């Protein structure tokens, strides 16, 4: 019985359900699982394929006490949800796990193929005899992670101080190239990117902070801010609405980009916006459950935002 399993079982004494992961033989990786009792929890795992941000489920579980196995970055989403009143602190039990970074499944497929079991040890990942340096297949958000220590937690598994964050790195080439683009070039770049968008809304549904979900302006005709056509113009408009709505709320968990089936680099936009919010307001989303997101309280006629607070 691992420490993780034991702690989930303990939390289940006071929680209706615990969100965690199990290993899926078909996927060769971890898949999310909801543990309702101690027996189910016996299958719980945490490894470098536990990419999903399970905080996405919490706003739908408001009427229950839910436990959540969470990486440092996932905890930031929980914190942000608490600060926005979408999750009650007394109804969530955070089980923090020490995370040395999680893999980008698309990189794993490129290196190894889908569904093969990944062995992660000693700075290398290995699958079917092929190896790759661990850092090269991590999600970009994990490079230079600032959140390995849990901001808040109820139960700690392992030693959070025992994991070293992966070395920092910018997304290869793309970020640099994008930053160097003129506004007109950026325009063309995004038109090309959004020409692939199929408006499946996976970005929205995978985002823990997009909790409007069923009443989202990306899809409604009231207000009719976007047309129903699936084309670059409407897709880009819909995405800009979503992204602007995440100003000062996005914790950079990268789930939107991970979920995107057509590979639109949404984090280029969100990172830019997150940096702007941090610079303008000294605010980093999901770091203080007591804080109010700046754009929720910002008053243009009475601009007294104190960046120190």
């Amino acid at each position: 019985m691992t420490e993780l399993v034991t702690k989930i079982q303990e939390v289940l004494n006071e929680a209706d359900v615990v969100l965690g992961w199990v290993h899926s033989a078909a996927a060769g990786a971890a898949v999310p699982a909801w543990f309702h009792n101690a027996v189910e929890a016996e299958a719980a795992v945490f490894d470098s394929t536990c990419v999903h941000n399970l905080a996405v489920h919490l706003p739908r579980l408001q009427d229950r006490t839910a436990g959540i196995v969470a990486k440092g970055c996932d905890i930031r989403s929980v914190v942000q949800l608490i600060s926005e009143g979408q999750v009650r602190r007394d109804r969530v039990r955070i089980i923090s796990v020490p995370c040395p970074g999680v893999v980008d499944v698309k990189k794993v497929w490129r290196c190894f193929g889908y569904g093969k079991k990944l062995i992660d040890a000693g700075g290398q990942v290995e699958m079917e005899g092929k190896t790759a340096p661990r850092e090269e297949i991590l999600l970009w958000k994990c490079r230079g992670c600032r959140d390995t220590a849990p901001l808040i937690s109820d139960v700690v598994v392992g030693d959070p101080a025992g994991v070293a964050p992966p070395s920092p790195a910018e997304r290869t080439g793309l970020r640099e190239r994008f930053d160097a683009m003129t506004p007109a070039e950026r325009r063309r770049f995004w038109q090309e990117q959004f020409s692939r968008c199929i408006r499946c809304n996976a970005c929205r549904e995978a985002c823990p902070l997009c909790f409007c979900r069923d009443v989202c302006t990306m899809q409604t005709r009231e207000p009719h801010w976007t047309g129903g056509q699936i084309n670059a113009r409407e897709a880009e408009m819909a995405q800009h609405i979503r992204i602007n709505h995440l100003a000062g709320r996005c914790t950079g968990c990268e789930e939107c980009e991970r979920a995107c089936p057509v590979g639109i680099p949404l984090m280029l936009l969100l990172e830019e916006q997150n940096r702007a919010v941090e610079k303008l307001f000294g605010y980093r989303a999901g770091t203080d459950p007591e804080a109010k997101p700046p754009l929720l309280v910002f008053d243009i006629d009475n601009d007294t935002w104190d960046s120190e607070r």
Partner: protein
Amino acid sequence: MRFIATDRIPGLLGRLVESGMSVWAPQVVKDTVNTVLFAPWTGLEEISLDAYTMLSAKQLVLPATERLFSYRYTLEGGRERIGIEPSPPADKETAVFGARACDARALAALDALFLPEEGSGYRDPGYAAHRAGLTVITLACTTCDSACFCSSFGKGPAETAGSDLILYPVEGGLLAEPVTEKGSQIAAFDIFEDSEQSKPELATTACIDLEGIGDKFLGAFNDLDFWQRATENCLSCGYCTYACPACHCFNIFDEMSSDREGERCRSWDACMFYVYTLETSGHNPRPSIAHRYRNRVGHKFSYYPANQGELLCTGCGRCIRNCPGGLDVRNVLKGLAAVEAATEPGTRKPGPSGPEAGKPGTEGPSANGPEAAR
């Protein structure tokens, strides 16, 4: 059989382009890590035949958005009139290169609905035009991965339905076997040569038991507990339906470009969206993810087979490989059998208690438990 060397494949595609066709082939999207999509091939692009595409080729017969007609209000002698200009049916010849047997088979399943025999149902003119202009050049699978389950559906990778020409990977190139007249014409191109090589052994995927699956679904229909547990990981996005080669639901709507003119369009729609069944009154008969996912499974494995005689799933595995939430439809299908066994008539759990309980017009006996509003 006919044979084409690997290095002559661009030449073959070039011949198709020269003949006036628009050619679509799988390509890695620029600036992405191995995101492979069907995309137009114009002569320079590198094609990628060893990875599975994130989306199927159905956009070639059911475009994501298609204008049905445009309209314009005019005033004539003080009276308002509407002028309608229908969009001409597509007349473009298109070839898709490197579809798989699962993609092609889905076209055959869609034909059952959109192109019924003359006189036996509505033939969709938009679909008919695209389908008539489409040539499907299928790459037979000699390998598969653990998300593939097409062997559950009879012939699996050896399926020929929906294909015009099938290409078999062999040493140094591809063997070509025509299925239709369109395919024969292409195999006759002199870029192919005659070959004595025999067809390779095709992959056999993991299988699930589909025996009586439609009835098993109906048996489990009322067990909302089952559907809620089965869909806990579902995020209710539309990826699985949009990537699916057989899902075909659409929405029809008007978009106005000014207060005088606009266009009526149809676009893909997904039954996993809350707004899909949202009624004008505000009532929604499928209020929870469980309700919506149940409908998706039912349409594929019960209603469509009952109405059209074809399963609406071909085992391509896209919804499994790429589900952002980590759902595997095979687990749900396996679970159906267990539900039926456990719920003999009259032994179903009594009384729903959740917030949707007893709401009139909710599909099924209504939701159980607090997750009903998910």
